[in-house]
């Protein structure tokens, strides 16, 4: 690759925006709708310019009703469209849960695969942005628990682009969790290169596929820090700090919660023999719990220490003044590493 210049830098937000406009360009049946996504370009500007470029038939504002948005997406998908809908914030997707759980997740099964619903539900999620109550929830467990939904959550700008394109192209419904903390983060990525990669060989550029593909974002030998979405960057920072104490930590980004890459999980834990699971969501009955249970079931004989979780507390999100005490941070991960069993 050529050296990084100013033009080959992108934000997470523009990666998402470009993924949508590229998908709309590639396939006429892709339509984007939700609250304020048209003229305004979304409250986070992720759909900026789509109405202008593709017209109000392809990207449009709906009346303010999340069940309505999800329910009409079902109908549009039944009738040949590929809707990409935006939920304005994590907690505001809750009015749509009946449509998502009872229909979007189940229609393919109910119709024996005759009616597939290629819907993408984009949900800005997580905290760390000083948002008030109802604007910082990590609600991924509800969706991951519901059979029939795929649940993706990218942690890098490249994944934001590639995984959103894959989500739009897959015939299964995908709940696409966007860590809002990362929206304005910059990365040395060139979107046109990503576009070429995806479009020239989209089968190979699939980041998730049918079985999930977690990625090792930092190699290590002593302990695996397993994470996803907004917590991956924190996990990497903790691994770097641990290195100063002589601990070699590997960091695994799950990327997709459904499908779940169990093989990738087993690989890293068998390699290191120790695991810490890090996620923002409250830990009780969470995705972190599921990952922990799987490690115990599959890797018991490789473990040198109990598996630990570093998650949000089991409280309503304490936004915005006290959120720093709630979110898993480097220190809390390092404390967990300290707590691990290091002697034989």
């Amino acid at each position, binding site marked *: 690759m050529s050296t990084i210049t100013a033009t080959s830098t992108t934000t997470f937000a523009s990666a998402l925006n470009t993924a949508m406009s590229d998908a709309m360009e590639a396939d006429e049946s892709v339509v984007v709708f939700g609250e304020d996504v048209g003229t305004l370009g979304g409250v986070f500007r992720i759909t900026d310019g789509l109405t202008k470029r593709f017209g109000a*038939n392809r990207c449009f504002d709906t009346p303010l*009703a999340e069940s*309505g948005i999800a329910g*009409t997406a*079902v109908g549009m*998908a039944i009738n*040949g469209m590929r809707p990409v809908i935006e939920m304005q914030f994590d907690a505001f997707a809750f009015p749509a849960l009946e*449509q998502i759980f009872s229909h979007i997740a189940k229609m393919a099964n109910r*119709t024996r*695969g005759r009616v597939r619903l290629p819907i993408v539900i984009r949900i800005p999620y997580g905290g760390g942005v000083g948002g008030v109550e109802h604007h910082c929830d990590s609600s991924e467990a509800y969706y991951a628990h519901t059979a029939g939904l795929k649940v993706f959550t990218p942690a890098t700008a490249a994944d934001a682009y590639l995984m959103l394109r894959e989500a739009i192209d897959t015939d299964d419904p995908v709940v696409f969790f966007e860590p809002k903390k990362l929206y304005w983060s910059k990365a040395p990525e060139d979107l046109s290169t990503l576009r070429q990669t995806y479009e020239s060989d989209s089968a190979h550029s699939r980041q998730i596929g049918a079985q999930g593909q977690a990625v090792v974002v930092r190699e290590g030998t002593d302990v695996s820090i397993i994470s996803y979405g907004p917590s991956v960057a924190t996990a990497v920072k903790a691994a770097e700090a641990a290195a100063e104490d002589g601990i070699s930590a590997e960091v695994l980004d799950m990327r997709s919660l459904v499908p779940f890459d169990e093989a990738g999980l087993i690989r890293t834990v068998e390699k290191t023999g120790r695991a810490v699971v890090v996620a923002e969501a409250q830990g009780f009955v969470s995705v972190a719990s599921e990952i922990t249970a799987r490690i115990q079931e599959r890797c018991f004989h490789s473990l040198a220490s109990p598996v630990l979780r570093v998650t949000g507390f089991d409280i309503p999100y304490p936004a915005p003044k006290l959120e720093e005490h709630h979110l898993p941070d480097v220190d809390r991960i390092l404390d967990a590493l300290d707590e691990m069993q290091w002697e034989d």
Partner: protein
Amino acid sequence: MDDPKTTPEPGHEKAEQASRIFEASRSFGITPEQYMLPAQQQIRMLDAQGTLVPVEQQGTGPGHEYPIPEDEVLLKAYAALVAGRRINDQNYALVRQGRLAVYPSSHGQEACQVGAALCLEPGDWMFPTYRDTVSVISRGVDPLEVMVSFRGDWHCGYDPKEHRVGAMSTPLTTQLLHAVGVAHAAKLRGEDSVVLAMCGDGATSEGDFHEALNFAAVFEVPVVFFVQNNGYAISVPLSSQSAAPSLAHKAIGYGLAGEQVDGNDMVAVLATLRRAVHLARENSMPLLVEAVTYRMQAHTNADDETRYRDREEVEQWKRKDPLLRMQTFLTSEGILDDDAAGRITDAAEKVASSLRQAMTAEPAENPLEIFDHVYTAPTAQLLAQRAQLDDELQRATTTEGAQ
């Protein structure tokens, strides 16, 4: 003189100017309010005895005109009514014999059931509820396929896309939004298919009812919302459900027209629905039709109706039976003769006997299929679980063989 309504506040223009209602009402020479509100009385063409009601007593008027369908269509409707009643009663019996897991019967509501199917063109769509088996069959879906889910199978039986009939399911009014989405997709592609969206009286209290009417009006899509008001939501009467003058009145708040029709009058139901479908298609806009009818049997086999209504009430509705009214009318008009009546009864009997046979046979199910359609390709977890069940099944067969 200045009409205050013609000078909206800045930033508030849209709702009025975008509304197709204004155009439509003008074309009938009436005000938008007169157009959107239901007529002064229920639309009714046949009285309880099956005699044609004089035109001036039918409830029709400018913007509320409902031409009586051609004889041929009426005869077809009658045949579907007879078949529908037979299907309801056959399925009721099959439940009692333990052949069906559940059956929400539409006995007494067959005029609505048939009207819903016969008002549509083949390219149109229907989104039924769990009680609309007879509508789905009248639309042309194989009765045996329709009954699959009531038999207790895990899937809906028929192909919704092939028949343009939504998969019947129970979460109340959720299907109304699907109907709006289907219509919207069709509109974006420049197709003029109409979507009929069905629900019950109780269901009108659900949030999705409100969201669907509102979306349809704002999107200006041809959806006909068809409410079968059978008086009850399981045990709860309409009076505990809504304080509106009628369910048809709900339309005006969303900017669409509502009409109320005698749901046990086959002629009126068909006339009203056909006109609604026509207007929806012509003007690309939604309408609401409320049919006032009655559920003659319990909610389902699991329900005990004696806990919430008395026999007397049911008996009163028996006298308004849609089938008898239609039969009397068609016979007196000379549209139905003994020959035709005989053929129609035979055809209905055939459907019933094929239902009996099919539901008595034990279906060859592949239990492993429950994993196959959840995703386009099963995940690793599902593959492992599938293998587990497969192994359990094989061990069970081996054990059986050994005995």
